[in-house]
């Protein structure tokens, strides 16, 4: 007996509907998109933040034949961080200020639509001082989400570029800015805030994906109502166990009202575990800058967080650098990976901090499992005590203890950190994390006359220089390289291999099933290395220094690799601002980094270009 075709279809689709659990469209949308390796649907490629692609058409054998397929100029100078989103036939790229968004048709390699937000110059210029970068877009619910420099979060129709809604996420007058990529989770858009140098108190905020209405906001410090920490249920790691937090842990380690300008901004990357419904991220350094002025641990600056995606309530929080004296911002990405530790498969998070330690924690409970230096020249702390979770600070390198009347020399890492915001990648095939790293140390010299907003005072100058030591042993070796590209085993906290790089690696890597890892260099090279050994297999010089992240996708059966080049940001600010003449006294303001990066200007000039690579042939 034949059933009519129509009713069969109907029946099966109803069954299909009934079989899927009720989850909101946005979430299933994003998750489903990330499951297809043809797309690159979130800034970090997937919710886990692994920046791993299952594509293997380009592999360690044939990558030597890679070649540029096409390129696109963004028309914007300044630093191009972040990377392209790829959803089906369309590539979405973004620029630093003025935050133009381009939707590019992969078939014709032409612009479908472009959108440039209107930002009030008076409002944005004071925040533009810092070479305002933008680290990318988010996609979900048929919309592209742009987090503008002036803190406005804007939803655009992904098909047409029409603005659907905008919401003011912060107040630029208070020094608030935004640089990070948002993340779509369930029916919400998650975003944070930057502006630590203006004393901004950091927060993570969730906005309704349909309307832009604020759903919740959790601060990095302040009373429990602000932090969304629930005493007696939210936990931290101390005394060798997962410990319930008491009342107002976000104010008790601050003097007086100082938590109100306490810093702890949230300008990094966010990841998400759909099963646990938890969002993971890190908070930045405490304000004010002068550590002596803010006695105490300054919680919860410099911390790793797990928050409930629906309510923002804190599941667990762990502070890496209590009472920061070195600017070791804790905002770097938190990668989710299931790994075997001590013979047991654990749901872990892995985080490589500015402070030079690679942390592995249980992502369900926040238990600290591993904390080891991923660059052995790191000397500000001897080790992290796993029981208390606290770093053991070496007094010789404490700027505060030395601050009275002597230079603090040779603190490693420099304030830029052993790793800055450039995200790592993780290959479940090799079980290694690939770290784009800095290899620098710094001196504090309390001699300089500073002048900020019309008041002179004696401040300290920070000078950065090459670490001059072996990344594997820490032994001084007179080396002058400023960067490393390192493979790491997060189950043991050991370096597997590490390549020297002339300059800091300021570009996020991507690892693929073809056993290749791609990253960019400050001189402007796109590089491919063997995922197992680190052997360099391919390089190509793009038009400018690369501080963007390398992403990969496929279109009509062909695998592509794409990256934004365009020097700027912190590493290239001297160049981005056109002042680094290469003379020893062309000092770069608010950086101190320039000495070490001075020779960079002979390699690269300004200008944003998106370059796409593929293998030859159809």
């Amino acid at each position, binding site marked *: 007996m034949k059933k009519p075709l129509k009713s069969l279809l109907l029946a099966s689709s109803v069954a299909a509907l009934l079989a899927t659990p009720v989850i909101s469209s946005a979430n299933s949308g994003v998750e489903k998109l990330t499951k297809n390796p043809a797309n690159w649907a979130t800034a970090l490629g997937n919710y886990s933040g692994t920046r791993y692609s299952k594509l293997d058409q380009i592999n360690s054998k044939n990558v030597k034949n890679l070649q540029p397929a096409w390129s696109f100029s963004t028309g914007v100078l300044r630093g191009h961080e972040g990377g392209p989103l790829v959803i089906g036939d369309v590539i979405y790229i973004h620029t630093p200020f003025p935050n133009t968004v381009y939707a590019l048709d992969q078939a014709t390699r032409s612009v479908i639509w472009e959108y440039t937000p209107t930002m009030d110059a008076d409002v944005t210029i004071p925040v533009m*001082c810092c*070479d305002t970068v933008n680290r990318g877009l988010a996609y979900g619910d048929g919309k592209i989400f742009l987090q503008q420099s002036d803190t406005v979060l804007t939803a655009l129709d992904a098909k047409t570029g029409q603005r659907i809604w905008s919401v003011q996420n912060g107040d630029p007058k208070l020094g608030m800015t935004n640089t990070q990529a948002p993340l779509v989770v369930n029916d919400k858009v998650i975003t944070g805030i930057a502006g630590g140098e203006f004393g901004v108190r950091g927060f993570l905020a969730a906005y309704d994906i349909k309307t832009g209405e604020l759903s919740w906001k959790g601060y990095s410090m302040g009373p429990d109502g602000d932090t969304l920490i629930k005493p007696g249920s939210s936990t931290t790691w101390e005394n060798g166990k997962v410990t319930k937090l008491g009342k107002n842990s976000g104010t008790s380690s601050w*003097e007086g009202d100082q938590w109100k300008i306490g810093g702890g901004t949230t300008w990094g990357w966010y990841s998400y575990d759909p099963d646990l419904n938890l969002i993971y991220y890190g908070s930045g350094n405490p304000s004010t800058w002068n550590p002596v002025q803010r006695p105490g641990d300054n919680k919860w600056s410099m911390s790793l967080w797990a928050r409930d995606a629906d309510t923002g309530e804190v599941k667990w929080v762990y502070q890496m650098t209590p009472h920061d004296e070195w600017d070791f911002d804790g905002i770097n990405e938190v990668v989710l990976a299931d790994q075997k530790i001590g013979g047991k498969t654990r749901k872990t998070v892995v985080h490589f901090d500015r402070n030079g330690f690679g942390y592995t924690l249980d992502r369900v409970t926040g238990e600290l499992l591993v904390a080891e230096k991923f660059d052995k020249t790191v000397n500000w702390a001897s080790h992290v005590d796993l029981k208390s979770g606290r770093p053991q600070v070496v007094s010789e390198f404490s700027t505060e203890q030395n601050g009275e009347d002597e230079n603090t020399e040779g603190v490693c890492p420099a304030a830029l950190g052993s790793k800055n915001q450039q995200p790592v990648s993780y290959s479940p095939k090799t079980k290694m994390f690939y770290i784009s790293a800095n290899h620098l140390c710094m001196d504090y010299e309390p001699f300089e006359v500073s002048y900020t*907003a019309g008041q002179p005072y004696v401040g300290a100058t920070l000078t950065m220089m090459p670490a001059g030591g072996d990344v594997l042993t820490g032994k001084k070796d007179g080396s002058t390289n400023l960067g490393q590209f390192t493979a790491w085993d997060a189950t043991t906290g050991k370096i597997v291999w590490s390549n020297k790089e002339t300059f800091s690696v300021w570009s996020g890597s991507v690892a693929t099933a073809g056993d290749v890892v791609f990253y960019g260099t400050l001189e402007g090279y796109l590089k491919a290395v063997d995922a197992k050994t680190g052997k360099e297999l391919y390089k190509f010089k793009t038009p400018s220094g690369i501080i963007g992240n390398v992403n990969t996708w496929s279109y009509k059966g062909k695998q592509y690799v794409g990256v934004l080049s365009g020097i700027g940001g912190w590493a290239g600010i001297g160049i981005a601002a056109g002042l680094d003449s290469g003379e020893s006294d*062309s000092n770069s303001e608010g*950086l101190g980094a320039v000495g070490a990066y001075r020779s960079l200007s002979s390699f690269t000039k300004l200008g944003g270009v998106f370059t796409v690579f593929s293998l030859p042939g159809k």
Partner: protein
Amino acid sequence: MSFAKKTKLLLPALALSTLAACQTTEKVNTPEQLNALEKISTTEHPSAPPKSSAAKDIKALEKLKAEKKFRVCADPLNPPYSTKKQDGYENKIAELFAKQLGQEVEYYWFPQRIGFVRNTLKSKIDNSEQYKCDVIMGVPAGFDFTATTNSYYHSTYVLLIAKGRGWDNITIPEQLRSLPLAKQDSLKIAMFDRGPGTAWLQNSGLLEQGVPYQTMTGDHENNTSMMIAKELQAGNIDMVILWGPMAGHIIAQQPDTYKVLPMKSALNMKFDYSMAMGVRYGDKQRKVLLNQLISKNQLAINKILTKYHVPLLPIPAAKKHQDDD
């Protein structure tokens, strides 16, 4: 983005001694003589190009004098220094200089935050070799983002106390260190995120009484002296340790409302600073020209500053610990 300048609380004795080094004070008029002085007061940079001949220098100086514009980098809203209305004292001094050169003042406006020097004095106009502006009218002597001229005034931080709030008997700042505890608890004093005032509070055990403020604001409609004036008026604070010219601005707004007590520099805490003008490193003839104008107009400059209630101290002879190109 994080920022790499950190306030140090205490100044090493060594740094103070370099500031107090001697400088020759003979009268100089000609560019050659000024140049000779330059050579005395700056150390040769090992990689510096050979010094150009005096004749070439004179020519370069004449060329500067022949320019049409006197191009200043300035904050559009930073009273008492500069405003877009050009009613700050740095505006007035720029006018004075330009007038003598037969030039017109031209401004490149940019808020004085992080990146001010980078985005003004050292920034080229798009697609050209010309810089956006050539001189910053006020930078501290020994500032290292720019080359600095001779100092043209010297001022100090002061303790500014609102009268009639129970603090009228304070005659020296040190009295705040020995208040009865109950009295100390009622103290509300501004505390900036950086600067010597906060260091002093910390040394005096008064951090708990500090009401925190940011030195730098992201607000283009506000600046530090405006903000502190409002906070004092609102009673959120009763006193503040503030850089002299800013205190002068507040006093000018509301005469007879405040008591002004100068802060005393100690070996490990510096409250008084010399102010100079900033030019690009290597822009040597401009520095020579500005130094000529400063020495010629010192009295007129003092007059302007006095009008703006800037607390003035004698300019100490100071040797710049700077190379000049």
